[in-house]
């Protein structure tokens, strides 16, 4: 029996190769088939592995390690294998990535139908799946890093998919460069791990930690902090979150798959995966918790005033990732992974629904120009409602359970945890508020689309019975519901966003506990159950208040938002400009770096040292050439004279060495005398 883990990433890679190499020449239908078939096959392999390896089925003991290509690196201290490992955490991630990933592939067929570079898009998307699956399957840090870098590459390629648009190309570059900072931390962490444990294998490091129960802090804190830097880059946390809002330049399904459901959760996954190290370093955990709570709050405040529907969702993603970090930081890893899962469902749904709205409005992303879409796009409206309810934490929707679990665990985690709990609570209010704001602005009220006036224009043309014009005008301008290839995934994800949390944190934590360790179970704590219920009621009340305020301000046309802005122009301007963080980074880091590159490195390094040494070498060669070219007289007899002189010199040497016993010609003489 074999689980064929290696097939899981390789199948999408084959899809990438086919579409990437031949896609330009293949018909669109075939490109779509290839793009869908391989992720579906990977999903099938994952399902098979899940059924065979499900705890209790008894066929395989988890973690199950599969070495599929022998040794990769074998150099002195460093031994790295091509091996994949399957355990409960990996299983959850695999199901999310292939399942949600496949749904988003289907959606993309409809969404990207009219785009140039259709084949290129799907090739990149399959490439992303390959790297993401490698990341979560990897049994050692180096292989995980390959996946880690690879998803960064795929993200870069897809953000810059419309590469002829400067803002998209810049956004791709920004994401790539900011991620490099995080990857630097990850690399340093790996070096420290290697020096400390002599191995990069997750299993071996876990064993080494288990053998040393007393080892705390010190080098482990250093390793954990380096890994946190990596996680902050990938998961868009303070201070490295700035790339994610710009990443919305990519096509919307990409935002759903890479920048909401899967890739950005890699940092959370990595922390949960290496929690053995974090558990030994309370300081590093505290750092994770504070970063998470701060990011959650900070991003939520920015989301309050954004008008671009995708940017609201981007900031809400950052904010939700902050929740997951908070969960990790209070050592409630399974709660964080639980939120990761429900977030994957509802955030993918929200992005796809937003994509459907944008598609229906022919590319309009500004919420102030939407409104009244409830009747025109009923399916999109209903599914989006499910997503909004899930993220806002309305009871029995998925997000309610997972967010509640994280907040409860934070509350139970000492003084720091308790204070961060309140930050989380305020964030929950903000989340509920900005999500319902998005909901009201998009689907309720009067239509503010410019297409309405176009419709009337079309009608007046019709009155003049110029049917040809009407036929031309209508199909491209009318607000329309999306095709079923887009609505189908929306419906499935809406169902998942609804029922996804019903498994409950207790059972989910139980399932993950062999990997992530046990969490505080309210049922087992003294007074835990009543505290849990109290906190739940508070959280629900907070969400309801957020909804109430959103309804008050945006439910119908109202002067109130304008009044608030007028009352607090400073705060509003701060939020609209996103705390001027981009400008701050630009002035403090980017500009000094470019100046230093241009003047210090450019003049001194490149100009003086590199170009100078090149000129010096060339000068020496020219000078020597000037000297020795005089030998090349072109005169045959002078050449032969040199030849004869050389032969004579050799002869003198030979005779002299024979006479005076010089050893350098012994060999020649011995050979001649044979």
């Amino acid at each position, binding site marked *: 029996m074999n689980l064929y883990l290696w097939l899981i990433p390789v199948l999408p890679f084959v899809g990438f190769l086919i579409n990437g190499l031949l896609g330009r020449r293949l018909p669109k239908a075939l490109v779509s088939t290839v793009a869908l078939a391989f992720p579906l096959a990977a999903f099938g392999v994952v399902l098979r592995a899940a059924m065979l390896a499900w705890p209790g089925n008894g066929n395989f003991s988890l973690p199950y390690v599969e070495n599929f290509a022998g040794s990769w690196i074998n150099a002195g201290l460093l031994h790295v294998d091509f091996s994949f490992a399957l355990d409960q955490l990996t299983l959850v991630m695999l199901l999310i990535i292939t399942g949600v990933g496949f749904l988003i592939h289907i959606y993309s067929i409809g969404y990207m139908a009219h785009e140039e570079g259709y084949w290129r898009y799907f090739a990149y998307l399959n490439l992303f799946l390959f790297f993401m699956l490698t990341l979560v399957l990897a049994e050692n840090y180096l292989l995980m890093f390959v996946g880690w870098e690879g998803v960064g590459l795929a993200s870069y390629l897809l953000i810059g998919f419309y590469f002829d648009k400067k803002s998209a190309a810049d956004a791709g570059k920004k994401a790539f460069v900011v991620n490099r900072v995080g990857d630097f931390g990850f690399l340093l962490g790996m070096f420290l791990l290697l020096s400390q444990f002599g191995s990069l294998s997750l299993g071996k490091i876990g064993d080494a930690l288990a053998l040393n129960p007393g080892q705390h802090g010190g080098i482990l804190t250093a390793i954990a902090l380096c890994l946190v830097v990596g996680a902050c880059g990938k998961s868009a946390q303070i201070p490295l979150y700035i790339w994610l809002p710009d990443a919305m330049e990519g096509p919307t399904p990409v935002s759903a798959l890479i920048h909401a459901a899967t890739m950005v959760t890699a940092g959370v996954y990595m922390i949960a995966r290496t929690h053995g190290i974090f558990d030994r370093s309370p300081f590093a955990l505290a750092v994770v918790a504070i970063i998470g709570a701060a990011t959650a709050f900070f991003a939520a405040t920015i989301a309050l005033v954004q008008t671009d529907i995708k940017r609201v969702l981007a900031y809400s993603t950052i904010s939700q990732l902050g929740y997951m970090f908070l969960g990790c930081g209070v050592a409630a890893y399974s709660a964080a992974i639980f939120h990761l899962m429900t977030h994957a469902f509802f955030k993918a749904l929200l992005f796809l629904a937003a994509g459907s709205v944008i598609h229906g409005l022919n590319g309009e992303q500004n919420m102030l120009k939407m409104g009244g879409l409830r009747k025109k796009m009923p399916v999109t409206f209903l599914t989006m409602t499910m997503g909004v309810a899930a993220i806002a934490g309305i009871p029995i929707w998925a997000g309610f359970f997972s967010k509640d679990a994280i907040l409860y665990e934070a509350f139970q985690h000492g003084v720091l945890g308790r204070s961060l709990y309140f930050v989380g609570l305020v964030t929950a209010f903000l989340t509920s508020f900005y999500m319902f704001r998005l909901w009201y602005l998009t689907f309720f009220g009067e239509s503010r689309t410019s297409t309405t006036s176009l419709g009337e224009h079309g009608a007046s043309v019709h009155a003049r019975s110029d049917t040809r014009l009407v036929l031309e005008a209508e199909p491209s301008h009318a607000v329309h519901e999306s095709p079923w290839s887009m609505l189908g995934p929306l419906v499935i994800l809406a169902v998942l966003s609804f029922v996804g949390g019903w498994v409950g944190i207790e059972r989910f934590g139980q399932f993950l506990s062999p990997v992530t360790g046990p969490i505080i179970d309210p049922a087992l704590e003294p007074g835990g159950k009543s505290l849990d219920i109290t906190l739940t009621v508070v959280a629900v009340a907070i969400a309801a208040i957020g909804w109430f305020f959103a309804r008050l301000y945006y439910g119908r046309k109202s002067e109130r938002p304008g009044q608030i802005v007028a009352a607090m122009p400073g705060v509003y301007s701060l939020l609209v400009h996103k705390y001027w963080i981009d400008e701050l980074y630009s002035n403090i880091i980017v500009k000094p770096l470019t100046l230093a590159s241009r003047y210090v490195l450019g003049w001194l390094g490149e100009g003086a040292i590199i170009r100078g040494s090149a000129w010096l070498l060339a000068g020496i060669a020219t000078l020597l050439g000037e000297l020795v*070219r005089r030998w*090349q*007289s*072109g*005169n*045959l*007899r002078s050449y*032969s*004279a040199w030849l*004869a002189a050389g032969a004579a010199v050799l002869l003198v040497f030979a005779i002299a060495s024979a006479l005076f016993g010089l050893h350098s010609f012994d060999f020649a003489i011995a050979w001649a005398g044979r």
Partner: protein
Amino acid sequence: MPQSLLNDVPSSWYLLLSALLFTLGVVGFLIKRNLITVFMSIELMLNAVNLSFVTFAHEWHAVKGQIFVFFVMVVAAAEAAVGLAIIIAIFRARNTLNVDQIDLMKL
């Protein structure tokens, strides 16, 4: 030539003759301007070498030297054929056989 007579002449004489011939060849090669004379000087040098090969073969009763002589002769014959062809080609192209004027390679 009878074996006894050959033995009467010491090997060193043959070697001296060979050295003399070789030196003549080198000098002719260096000072003569006519390409054909230069060419003949090369042949002279080759034959001087052949002579010393044969001498040493005789002296040490080794057959290797004599075999080498045949090699040299073959190479010399081939070289003569190619060399003369080149000389004819040069004469046709430049109308002279003066080596000082055949200096196309000069910078």
